[in-house]
């Protein structure tokens, strides 16, 4: 835990140094910017692909990402019921660049959703998946620097997100068949 606190202090030391850097961190860490960017990439991915095969893979990635987001949220809700961790600003002096969230610090919900989307896509499309990993990592880092999460919260969120996505894409087999049916139905409407 000492390493966790040390890394938190290192990240949070970036906050409050420069108004420009603070604004950048604020833009990256809020609930609207990067999360919207992540879902906009998913939205674009649905229509992307030079061949029907590539497009179908991308559409499977999008459907998997949406499903794994639901699973990810369920896991986080369950974790929050059994374990509550106070936010860093409740226990230590921090430079806070955000409002004071009242829910559990562990795991980082936003990071978890980001990594869940990125992993779901990465398992189908490495290039776009990598871009999403970069966005999700920025979101996690910004929330650490902004003073609302410990590094272990970010790491926990990453693990939950990756686990949810892996489970949906690789382990729940019937979903693949369900995606086929959905994509075929949407093709008739020229939407897939």
């Amino acid at each position, binding site marked *: 835990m000492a390493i966790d606190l040390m890394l938190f202090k290192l990240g949070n030391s970036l906050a409050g140094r420069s108004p420009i850097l603070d604004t950048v961190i604020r833009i990256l860490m809020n609930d609207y910017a990067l999360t*919207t960017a992540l879902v906009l990439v998913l939205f674009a991915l649905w229509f992307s692909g030079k061949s029907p095969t590539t497009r179908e893979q991308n559409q499977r990635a999008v459907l998997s990402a949406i499903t794994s987001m639901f699973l990810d949220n369920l896991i986080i809700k369950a974790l929050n019921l059994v374990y509550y961790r106070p936010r860093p600003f409740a226990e230590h002096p921090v430079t806070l660049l955000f409002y004071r969230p009242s829910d559990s610090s562990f795991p980082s919900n936003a990071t978890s959703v980001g990594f869940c989307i990125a992993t779901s896509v990465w398992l189908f499309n490495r290039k776009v998946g990598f871009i999403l990993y970069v966005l999700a990592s920025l979101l996690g880092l910004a929330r650490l620097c902004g003073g609302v999460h410990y590094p272990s919260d970010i790491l926990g969120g990453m693990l939950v997100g990756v686990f949810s996505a892996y489970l949906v894409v690789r382990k729940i087999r019937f979903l693949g068949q369900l995606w086929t049916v959905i994509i075929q139905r949407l093709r008739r409407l020229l939407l897939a």
Partner: protein
Amino acid sequence: MLYFVSKELALGYLFFSFLSALGVLQCVAARYHLFGLAFWDGRAQRTCRQRCIWGYGLGILLIAGSGIWFFVSHWVEIFAPGLAGAELSLLFGVGAACALAVTLVVAPLLQHLRSSIPLQSKGSEGQMVAVSRATGRLCIPAGATAPMPAICLVPGFGANEKVMDTLAGHMVQEGLIVLVIHPDEESHAYPEILALLPAAMSLLSKRPEVDPQRLGALGYDLGGDLVIRAASASKRIKAVAALAPVLVDTPVSLDLLGELPYPQALRWAGDRKRAKLRKELNALEYGAKIAPRPFLLLYGAEDRLVARAPVEEWLAQHKDAVDLKVIPSAGHLNLVNRPMALHTIVQWFKEHL
């Protein structure tokens, strides 16, 4: 339960989602040439770069503009407790769905407005003649004295018949006699439609201006399927050209929006009469019977209305029997309008008739 905290923030985010999704659709339309989703006139631009630049520009403008507007106008609310994940997901979903619906409605409307500008037409020339149950327009080059080669043009059955006028005008200018068929609803029926080409050949061979040993047939779209089928049985036809023949069932998917606006694409995909006629003509089966007569198969490199894989498989088996030409950056519907396609067709007929 959903709790939106601030009505103004929720509506602001909804509008931001809507505009940014609209921008994403424009970028996607530019990247993948999905004309049915594009607000700009993608097909009017000759090069890929020109086509993309407006789409990307509009898309980026919408995304960046809506983002700046949302963050600047809601800066304080954004850093206060507000919308949670479930509310954000719902608002984004609604915004994106609205953006898609608006795009599918507005893109065809803009396309309709653009197409209402009158285009140069050469269709008024020539003499109307009866061909079997259909009608045709016979165009003879001015000052023709010695018997000349003649070509029967069969358009696709549907709204794209008029594109043949451009081709006919060009062929007449190049010294070829042309008979453009205008099939009506009744002559679409199978097997009656099979009488169309033999009747046209008979009519042409009786004309004093026409050399009966130099008769050709050209079909576009489903008309291409018909000329392949007719030429396999009629030895009078000495050279056959099929422009973007359908040959196999059209794959129904988002790809149709690469050629058509959404309402037209839906009608195209659901046209059972057309699919039935394609199946009955079964041109792929009869294509091999045209040899040793010359047979030109012309496609646009970006044709989204024809399934290329089965056709390419067939072509690989009949390499020597078919002269395949692909026109770069041409689609299915704009193939005949391309100067390169016009030039290729005319030169090919001049060489083989």
